[in-house]
């Protein structure tokens, strides 16, 4: 029981889990794609990248640092659900967010990290939890 308490504390802060991505290896000038695996805790949903209501906070992956240039971020097709008469576009369970990167010609060779954050807002059918962000780290090897 005591061993599970840290899990409980963790769960109160994180409503989704980002699987640590494997290292990507790319040559200068190349374009590479990487899919970030995300799992929303059972019973919860997060707003999609394009919520149907302007006040709802979208899921957003932002790469903030590292050697690669972000060309595009693609989200999966959302699930349409209805909660109390309100139509929502959400993500549940496990899904992937694909990022297309370009390796600059002048990138330094070697291993480093791309860093980013995933902002999300989780709810279940009765309540919502405060918007949160989780840090994302992607190991990169430039050849």
């Amino acid at each position, binding site marked *: 029981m005591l061993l599970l308490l840290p899990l409980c504390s963790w769960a109160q802060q994180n*409503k989704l889990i980002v699987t640590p991505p494997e290292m990507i290896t790319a040559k200068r000038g190349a374009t590479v794609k990487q899919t970030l695996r995300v799992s929303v805790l059972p019973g919860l949903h997060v707003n999609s990248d394009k919520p149907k209501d302007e*006040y709802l906070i979208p899921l957003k992956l932002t790469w903030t640092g590292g050697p690669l240039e972000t060309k595009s971020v693609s989200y999966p097709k959302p699930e349409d659900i209805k909660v109390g008469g309100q139509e929502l576009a959400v993500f549940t369970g496990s899904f992937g967010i694909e990022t297309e990167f370009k390796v600059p010609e002048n990138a330094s060779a070697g291993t480093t990290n791309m860093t980013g954050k995933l902002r999300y807002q989780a*709810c*279940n059918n*009765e309540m*919502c939890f405060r918007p949160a962000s989780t840090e994302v780290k992607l190991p990169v090897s430039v050849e």
Partner: protein
Amino acid sequence: MRRLTLPAAIVLIAIGIFSFDSCTGSKSKAAGEASKAAEAARKPAPNFTLRDENGAAVSLADYKGKVVLLNFWATWCGPCQIEIPWFEQFEQQYKSQGFAVLGVSMDDDGWQAVKPFVVTHKVNYRILLGNDSIGQLYGGLDALPTSFIIDREGRLAYTHVGLAGKNEYLSEIQSLLASKAQSAASLGVAAAPALLVGAAE
């Protein structure tokens, strides 16, 4: 010794799984969590002072003698949006009987986010801007909506964490309105220290 170990481990794992599920806030039932305090066991609602959209300081103590539905909400909270039209109806229907709704927005973006929402949704009750201090005062407010129904003596009578039923609210409000107001001297809310937690925006 070995005989006891296995059942004990199963019980511990089951309790652990139950606790973990509870703390994720995930539930499959249709309504949120509700609790009712027996009249004698009701505790004073913590007093606070927050600002409304005009910058006016509003204290819970200003509402002594009234039944108050204190609703913590946010513009980004879908279930909160479902309740708002009910609260507008309650405010209109019971205002003359000594009832008021106080909506405390927990939006981090402040009035910039809240004002347009209030206009769009034609909210007819008072909206205040909350912050972490009031959140702590009312138990953390990890999930929204969270609502408290406060009796005429300024005590917490009903608590709802998550979306509650309209009829449930209605019956609770009606039952508190039916009880007679006590003398101002016995108002717990007036005795509680005021905490100015309004964001100046």
